[in-house]
Structures are given as structure tokens and as C-alpha cells.
């Protein structure tokens, strides 16, 4: 497939190479996009990777949201382009207003670095087309601020519109309604705290992330036509 995935690199990102390698391993083309670039032309999908963009100063994602590339990301998303925010990338997308809610500190007051089990709740997003509802995936988390929260109206909307993409089986961080990932109203922007790019090879203990990134590649390919 001729799809090309852009991985947005902020100062302080640290999962961009994992994202690149896992996409390439799956047969896709992927390149970095520097945060100061003002264009994402030529990409068919974007990943906002994990890490500590701009040092997470002020709040995770608070400063990254103002990086020049974010206007281009916003336009790409408004045009229906698939955008996936992983971990810190999820935080960046909520701060940018591309996804609802916010990520607060984990309920257990601890930084969590462990493997979680996720349940696929909808296949109607670019990250889950190749999975099946009810699939359970073993995918690691690595975060302090991963406790998803939103107001009651937003939660009701997310449920009613089938926008909760992934739920934890055994909630590790206190996220409301066990939410591990959500999508926007247009369904093309997805954010999740777990790291599918770190679960794409037997050597790292799980290959369950591959189905998610393969979905992204298929969705990106559909955009190429």
C-alpha cells in the first residue's frame, strides 16, 4: 500500500522511533514531521507519539498544542485525515481541543509501567477497523497522567455515539468508565494512553498492538485511494 504515515516529533517526544519502526515493520512508509514544520502535506495518516513534549511543562500537552505543526494537524483532522495520539500524544490532542476530556494524574498516585488488557469497543475508527468488537489486546501503558476524565454530559455523549474506542479490563489508573481511548465526533481522531507501537513484536512480549497500527495503515491507504 502506498500510504505514508507522519509521526510528529516535538522536543521531548520519546516514542517516535518505536512508532516509525512498527509502522515500517507492518509494511508501511513512515517519516518524522518536526513540530516547527507548518505542513503535513504528503501524509495519509498522522501519529502524535508518546513522551514529554516540551518537557510537559505547565501541563502535559499544554505547550505542544501551540507548536506550529498543530495548525496543520488541525486542518488535516478537519479534512477527515486519520490522526492517532498515543499517551503524551493523547494528552496533546485533548489540550488542542481535538479530543474531549482531559488526562489527570493516576488515581493510585503512582507512575504506571505495566501491561494492560484492553477491550475493543468499536471498529468504526481508523485505529480499529481490522479488529473485532470484544477483542482483548495486551498492550503496555507507561504514564503518570493517564486517568481519563470528562464532565457527565461529555461522557453520556461518548457512550451514546459509540466513541469509546478502547476500555481497560481491570482499570489501572482510575479512568472514568474504564476508558483507555476515545475518538472525536468525526471518528477520524483517536487518542489512547496505551502504546500499541510497543506491542508489535514477540521480542517485547506482545504483538497485540499490530492489529491497531495495521488498521491505521489500511485507513491511510483508503485515503490514497
Amino acid at each position, binding site marked *: 500500500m502506498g500510504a505514508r504515515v507522519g509521526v510528529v516529533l516535538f522536543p521531548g517526544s520519546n516514542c517516535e522511533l518505536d512508532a516509525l519502526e512498527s509502522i515500517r515493520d507492518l509494511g508501511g512508509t513512515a517519516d518524522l514531521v518536526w513540530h516547527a514544520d507548518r505542513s503535513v502535506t504528503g501524509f495519509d495518516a498522522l501519529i502524535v507519539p508518546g513522551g514529554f513534549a516540551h518537557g510537559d511543562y*505547565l*501541563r502535559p500537552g*499544554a505547550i505542544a498544542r*501551540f507548536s506550529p505543526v498543530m495548525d496543520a494537524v488541525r486542518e488535516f483532522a478537519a479534512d477527515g485525515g486519520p490522526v492517532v495520539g498515543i499517551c503524551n500524544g493523547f494528552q496533546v490532542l*485533548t*489540550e488542542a481541543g481535538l479530543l474531549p*476530556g*482531559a488526562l*489527570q*494524574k*493516576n*488515581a493510585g*498516585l*503512582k507512575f504506571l509501567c505495566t501491561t494492560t488488557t484492553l477491550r475493543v469497543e468499536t471498529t468504526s475508527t481508523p485505529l480499529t477497523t481490522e479488529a473485532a468488537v470484544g477483542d482483548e489486546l495486551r498492550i503496555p501503558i507507561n504514564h503518570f497522567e493517564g*486517568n481519563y*476524565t*470528562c*464532565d457527565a454530559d461529555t461522557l453520556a455523549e461518548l457512550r451514546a455515539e459509540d466513541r469509546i474506542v478502547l476500555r481497560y479490563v481491570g482499570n489501572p489508573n*482510575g479512568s472514568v468508565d474504564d476508558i483507555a481511548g476515545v475518538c472525536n465526533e468525526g471518528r477520524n481522531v483517536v487518542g489512547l494512553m496505551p502504546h500499541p507501537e510497543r506491542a508489535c513484536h514477540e521480542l517485547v512480549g506482545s504483538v497485540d498492538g499490530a492489529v491497531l497500527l495495521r488498521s491505521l495503515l489500511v485507513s491511510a491507504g483508503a485515503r490514497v485511494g
Partner: protein
Amino acid sequence: MLFSVLVETRLRPGIADPQGATIERSLPSLGFDGIRGVRVGKAIRFELEASDEDTARAHADEVTQRFLINPVIEAADVSLSVVEPA
């Protein structure tokens, strides 16, 4: 006019505050009893040039709401004082 601005941010009620909880838990072991409800926020200070106090306040409020806090999980009090009158 030059104003000195103090923005005090806090987590909204019900939002997890690990720092506050950890401080509160460690107080008794240090011999400080009878303290509860510890919440940790931030104090952000800056100077702001504006033609009058209303303009300065509007500007400081906008910066606070758009950037200094995330209204989903945080709230803030903004206070302002004159450093250099017009």
C-alpha cells in the same frame, strides 16, 4: 500602565492530587497533626503592560483560561496590582 499579575491555579474538586495526598499522608510522621484537605496548586506571576486595569484584567483572564489552566480539570484566581501607574 504596568501591572503585576498573580495567577493561582488549583485542581477542581474531585480531581486527583497525588502531591497533596502524599504531603497529607506524611505530615503525622513528622509530628504535624490535625492537618487535612491538603491540595497543591501553582502560583504563576508575571508583569503585564496595558492601558488600564480593565484591559489588563481581560488580558490576564484570557491568558489564564486559554493557556495557564485546563478548564476541564483546573480552576484559577487571577489577582492584579499596579506596579507603575500611567
